[in-house]
């Protein structure tokens, strides 16, 4: 006797998150799987929405700087820089040279700190939890200490001001930064040695979550995500702001546009940031003003609109600022790079195994406060 029976299968949907270590914050993915294969994914965001844009409309121009720290909590200086430049563009302000150099040193160090955070968290996603996470955080701590000395805070710096900086850096800033840069250079080499040829990383990240250059552009990708897909585009080079036109650095790009390339691009970017910081330390004026003279306490930019964009660790961070001549922004829209990347998560994940979904999400390097604002 033979029994002929076809096995009936159904697709199963389940939640990953909102409270889940692999989602890097409060984020939910509704995964629909056929066995181990992901056939559908729906990202659910908004758990951290605090209305930063609405709040900024009800604060004056200086108070709104604080929301930038809380929006982009891994690259606070970069977010602050974008916002203050937007206001400066509206007001037509020139920033003293020394302040520009200090800003660039801090933002580039912040980029390294943010990428180190990525290295740590990403290796944990891969399942190499422990060693690398600790190495990355040890290096990040050197930078954090420097930031604390400069701004007085470990996380919410609020150190940049429209027209310059809140106060001058400590006397030993240049020497201290040189030490930190030296340590960071060694730290990057350590991470490179530990992870780049790691068997687990190679096996799990190559050929995963591929986005072609056309797709990446179509979905509004920017930063390392875009460059990993082979587009040599960096706002620091394409539309130089601040003093980036005086600095030498390379723009690393990937070839495949997969998760491994995103890792490699970020690793190389850290080295380039070290280069930039060293050039800044050499070129920086020894003393001089750190804030534009003659600024009033309450700022009233003339009526106008500007879309300012800067190259943040996660990509193009944009501030659309509308002024009506009052002391408060009329409208402040934050264009968050993670927000754009996350909208394409479904396209990157579908067709991969369930375990790869976590790796692909990790490679996006999301900051959910930035996504939800």
């Amino acid at each position, binding site marked *: 006797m033979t029994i002929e029976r076809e096995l009936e299968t159904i697709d199963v949907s389940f939640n990953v998150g909102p409270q889940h270590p692999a989602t890097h914050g409060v984020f939910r993915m509704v995964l629909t799987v056929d066995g181990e294969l992901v056939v559908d994914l729906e990202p659910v965001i908004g758990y951290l929405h605090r209305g930063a844009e609405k709040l900024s409309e009800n604060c004056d121009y200086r108070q709104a700087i604080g929301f930038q720290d809380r929006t982009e909590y891994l690259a606070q200086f970069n977010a602050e820089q974008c916002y203050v430049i937007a206001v400066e*563009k509206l007001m037509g302000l020139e920033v003293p040279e020394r302040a520009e150099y200090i800003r660039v040193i801090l933002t580039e160090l912040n980029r390294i700190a943010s990428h180190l955070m990525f290295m740590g968290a990403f290796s944990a996603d891969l399942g190499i939890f422990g060693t690398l996470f600790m190495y990355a955080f040890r290096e990040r701590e050197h930078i954090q200490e420097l930031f604390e000395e400069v701004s007085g805070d470990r996380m919410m710096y609020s150190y940049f001001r429209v027209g310059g900086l809140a106060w001058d850096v400590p006397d030993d800033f240049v020497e201290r930064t040189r030490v930190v840069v030296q340590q960071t250079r060694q730290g990057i080499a350590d991470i490179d040695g530990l992870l780049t040829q790691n068997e687990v990383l190679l096996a799990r990240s190559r050929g995963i979550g591929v986005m072609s250059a056309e797709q990446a552009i*179509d979905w*509004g990708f920017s930063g390392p995500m875009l460059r990993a897909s082979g587009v040599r585009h960096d706002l620091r080079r394409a539309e130089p702001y601040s003093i980036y036109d005086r600095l030498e650095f390379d723009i690393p790009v990937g070839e495949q546009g997969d998760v491994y390339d995103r890792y490699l691009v970020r690793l190389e970017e850290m080295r380039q940031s070290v280069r930039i910081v060293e050039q800044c330390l050499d070129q920086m004026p020894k003393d001089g003003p750190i804030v534009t003279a*003659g600024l009033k306490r309450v700022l009233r930019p003339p009526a*106008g609109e500007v*879309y300012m964009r800067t190259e943040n660790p996660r990509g193009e961070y*944009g501030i659309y600022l509308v002024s009506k001549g009052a002391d408060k922004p009329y409208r402040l829209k934050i264009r968050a790079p993670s927000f754009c990347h996350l909208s394409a998560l479904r396209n990157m994940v579908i067709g991969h195994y369930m375990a790869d979904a976590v790796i692909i999400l990790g490679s996006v390097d999301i900051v959910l406060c930035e996504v939800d604002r």
Partner: protein
Amino acid sequence: MSAAEERREPGVKETPVVPPPPGSIADTFKKVLPDVEFGASQGVLDVVLTVPRQDIPRVMRAAKDDPRLAFDYLRCLSGIDQMEQGLEVVYNLYSFKHAHNVTIKTVLAADDPQVETVTTVWNGALWHEREAHEMFGIVFQGHPDLGPLLLEEGLGYYPLLKAHPLAEIEESQEDFLRAEAPAAAAAAGAAAPVDERAAKIALAQKKAEVMKKAREEARAKGLSPEDEKAFVQEALKSLEEGG
């Protein structure tokens, strides 16, 4: 720079509307689409083009497909509530091929905030439009899914509209919804109840005015700090009794 120039307050002047320089991207747009009415001006960083909303699909399609424009990248899409002037949708575009930028704007009437979606041109617009929909109530026709993204379902108001208050947020959101009902009643002919909150704010403003005036008066008379305090208290008391 003279000392006087150094001390002048930057940013009190009104920004004049400057036409874009000849040969700018605005001219290319006019060449590609000669029958569209473009309003062009030079913004702080980019050229700003204002487009009538019925032309948005045509302009956006051409912006991406025409080789002279080749705007393959949607940088940002924002909604702006301009109150009496209606709602604005702003598209910031970039071209990787030509490395040029443009800002395209369209104005929607506040009572009919509808515009064709651009998700058919750039996939990246999907979430931006969803966000603009839930924050401003702008309807993007043809968008595959305009469900809530950042906010909870069934909220019943659009938080980024200027009509939506922020101060004392917990109460006022409720107040806002409740205020809708009396406003509708007033429109129907019934007398609107006295707005207590507005009255409180008015009283506080009046008090501040009286205090300021009394303090100035006291200073002009040259009273000591204690006497000045008493003088201000007196003025406040007479206001309360009078009101």
